[in-house]
């Protein structure tokens, strides 16, 4: 079994682990019994690993329909005395936040850890919000590791803190920690407690107004205890770089790595205060630390949160050590930091020269290079759906249609030639915003949502649209998986998170049961039929639902190769008229132009045949 070492590795063993893999080992060392999640990059690999190791570890793991449900599974399990873990990407915590806020009020019995994987620089997200605000908003303690080893170690510590305070612990990583690989030395695994007993205590667990106002009082007293733990925690410690440093630098998470490397690169000495237990900050210790240095720099990614806390604290205590933060150091409030950005800020502040490679920099390539943005894969079924909807719109002569999009691979349909994503907010927003465009304009609206996203946040929006008599064509791009995050299951599939058989919920049956007047299942690989379906759907006065059902080409290719059935397509150049319709309408990575004519890359072609259907002269056929 892949990841066997995570299950039966002993104390002292070590493995090269991704931060996300290390989080799983940490949770296992803490003896968790229940884990639940909804996949989202950069947290997805945590679930991928649990899918494989959960059974062998004696842990219950599920992919819930969305992050809020996942958090609720874990919260209730923890209230029943079972150490529980839920993890999600930063914007997932927005979805879960309604329940998350209340878990702070009612607290927990067994350890309860909520991991948020933030994405500064929006490598794979719609925003780069700083979820450290959530610790402050909910008044819960927060830990932030810098490396895979710390991710593993801090997870164990997080459960202990959660139980001491009877509060959930927010465990915040970022892309550069979650997707950092490094050596991890294991500790011992605590035995798994898989079942507990829920002992009723309505005054504690039911926040009706009579109870909740007292809960807030109690929460603040727990937060004061958390501050005490932070003041004495070994997760907050000083690292001396060089000798005799007279400058103090407070830093956290991956930025700690950049600060240490930048100081070494610049040959500077400094005392670095690393905050692993980063909320509440150990302000007493930071004040003492500041008393021994000439000035205090605060270097942190995104928002100036530690900086503001420290400046306010120093002001109220009359601490005179100058504090330099974002504005003073010119550290940007946007995007992720790195060694270069931090080194530049420090060099500027200390008036030293930046290190330049001794050999000098290279000259860039003189002209623009062809760009290679992410694209729909060869054989991606979404391509057929977009092609069909575009053809139907053209044939019906619909002016200025609006495309309400959603979160998934299919958002890539925003690129030419499809240009099929005009507006996007969040998971499930294609359905709600479609109604808004319908109500506020006379434009026809076409919205697109994936199968997993449909169950995540599309269901209640669809109910709302039907009841409020909105008119739009909703396509559920049902590729039988949660593709973009790495092929996790969803409620429309026959297997669950750990590979066991599970009841599959039919999307078309759900739509019909809700009263959608037009529901049609299409195969997006059959372009003409799909186009006709869209022409029909566009006439419907109400919500029309098209379920474009075709398994993700990456999964299909794997299955075809395993069965030994593989075909590719090729262009017959004696027939090809060089009209390039296949190139421009299909926009498949496997099709390229060679000497003016279309050519198909045999390594990339997956044999879906969509291009052969748009060729007017039938020049594209199966390669013999």
């Amino acid at each position, binding site marked *: 079994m892949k990841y066997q070492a995570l299950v039966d590795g002993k104390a002292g063993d*070590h493995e*090269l682990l991704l931060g996300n893999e290390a989080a799983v080992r940490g949770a296992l060392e803490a003896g968790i019994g229940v884990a639940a999640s909804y996949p989202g*990059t*950069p947290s*997805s690999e945590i679930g991928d690993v649990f899918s494989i190791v959960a059974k062998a570890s004696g842990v219950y793991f599920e992919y819930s329909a969305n992050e809020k449900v996942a958090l609720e599974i874990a919260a209730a399990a923890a209230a029943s005395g079972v150490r529980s873990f839920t993890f999600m990407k930063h914007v997932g915590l927005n979805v879960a936040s309604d329940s998350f806020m209340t878990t702070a009020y009612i607290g927990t019995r067994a350890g309860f850890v909520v991991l948020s994987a933030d994405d500064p620089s929006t*490598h*794979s997200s719609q925003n780069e919000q700083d979820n450290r605000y959530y610790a402050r908003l909910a008044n819960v303690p927060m830990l932030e590791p*810098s*490396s895979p080893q710390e991710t593993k170690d801090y997870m164990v510590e997080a459960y202990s803190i959660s139980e001491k305070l009877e509060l959930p612990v927010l465990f915040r990583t970022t*892309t*550069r920690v979650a*997707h*950092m*690989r*490094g*050596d991890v030395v294991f500790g011992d695994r605590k035995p798994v407690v898989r079942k507990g007993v829920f002992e009723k205590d309505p005054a504690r667990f039911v926040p009706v107004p009579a109870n909740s106002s007292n809960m807030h009082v109690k929460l603040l007293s727990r937060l004061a205890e958390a501050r005490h733990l932070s003041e004495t925690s070994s997760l907050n410690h000083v690292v001396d770089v060089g000798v005799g440093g007279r400058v103090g630098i407070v830093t956290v998470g991956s930025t*700690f790595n*950049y600060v*240490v*490397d930048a100081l*070494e*690169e610049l040959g500077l000495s400094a005392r670095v205060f690393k905050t692993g237990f980063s909320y509440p900050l150990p302000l007493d210790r930071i004040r003492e630390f500041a008393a021994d240095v000439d000035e205090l720099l605060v270097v942190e990614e995104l928002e100036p949160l530690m900086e503001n806390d420290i400046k306010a604290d120093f002001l109220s205590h009359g601490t005179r050590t100058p504090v330099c933060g974002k504005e003073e150091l010119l550290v940007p409030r946007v995007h992720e930091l*790195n*060694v*270069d950005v931090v080194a530049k800020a420090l060099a500027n502040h200390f008036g030293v020269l930046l290190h330049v*490679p*001794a*050999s*000098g*920099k*290279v000259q860039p*390539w003189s*002209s*623009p*290079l*062809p*760009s*290679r*943005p*992410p*694209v*729909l*894969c*060869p054989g991606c079924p979404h391509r057929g759906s977009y092609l069909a909807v575009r053809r139907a719109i053209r044939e019906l002569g619909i002016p200025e249609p609006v495309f309400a999009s959603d979160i998934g*691979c299919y*958002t*890539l349909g925003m690129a030419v*030639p499809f240009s099929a994503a005009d507006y996007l907010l969040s998971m499930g927003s294609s359905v709600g915003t479609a109604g808004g465009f319908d109500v506020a304009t006379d434009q026809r609206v076409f919205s697109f949502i994936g199968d997993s996203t449909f169950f995540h946040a599309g269901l209640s929006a669809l109910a709302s649209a039907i009841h409020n008599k909105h008119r739009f064509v909703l396509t559920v791009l049902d590729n039988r998986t949660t*593709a*973009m995050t790495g092929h996790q299951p969803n409620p429309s599939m026959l297997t669950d998170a750990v590979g066991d058989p599970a009841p599959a919920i039919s999307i078309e049956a759900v739509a019909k049961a809700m009263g959608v007047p037009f529901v049609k299942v299409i195969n997006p690989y059959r372009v003409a039929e799909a186009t006709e379906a869209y022409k029909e759907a566009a006439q419907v006065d109400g919500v029309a639902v098209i379920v474009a059902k075709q398994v993700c080409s*990456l999964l299909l290719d794997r299955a075809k190769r395993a069965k030994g059935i593989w075909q590719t397509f090729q262009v017959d150049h004696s027939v090809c008229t060089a009209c390039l319709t296949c190139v*421009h309408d299909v*926009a498949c*990575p496997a*099709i*390229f*132009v060679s000497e003016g004519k279309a050519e198909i*890359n045999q*390594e*990339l072609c997956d044999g879906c045949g969509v291009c052969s259907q748009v060729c007017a002269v039938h020049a594209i056929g199966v390669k013999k």
Partner: protein
Amino acid sequence: MRRVLAGLCSACDRGEEMSSLNVFFAGVGGQGIITGASIIARAAIAAGVNAVMSEVHGMAQRGGSVVCELRLGDVHSPMIPEGEADLIIGFEPVETVRSLTRANHHTVVITEVCPIIPVSVSLGGVAYPAVEDLLVYLRSQVVAVYAVPAAAMAEEIGLPQVANVVLLGAAMGTGLIPLELGTIRDTLSRTVPAKALEANFRALQEGFELTRKA
């Protein structure tokens, strides 16, 4: 203490001590880039050399530019500072050239020569440059460029998926990576399915021979 890698690197004659080795991987999603980098990282850790890696799992499963950064030695950040790559392993010619912002004149470059034409080119974007021109440019900028037909060699071996291991072998052949070839072989034995092991060994060896002789 900073670990000094100099002396272990037979090909890096820079007149300065190296405390770390920075290897930058660039290519296209689906080429086995992260797998390839992980093999070196695992081997390094097995040999007692610290290794940290950074990877960005992009929005699409396939077809977009993918980079992976690997640093050996006593460093904290897994991301390579600008201009500080000691070795660039490019899995596709344009991606190799794109990654040259990470290079300095002493950087050693290994590049696959077979292009993968991006959709942007077919749709009338910037034309794909001649591979020969890309190689001329690379050679004008850095101390050594090894052009490796890794995909073709892997095809010849009979397993196209081992193109990444051909490139790893070529990287080892430069002598820059402070590890024994046997350590890489051991790591492959532990990570590659048994039926593909022979092809992987062959790919490693053929890549190694190619740059060692050069």
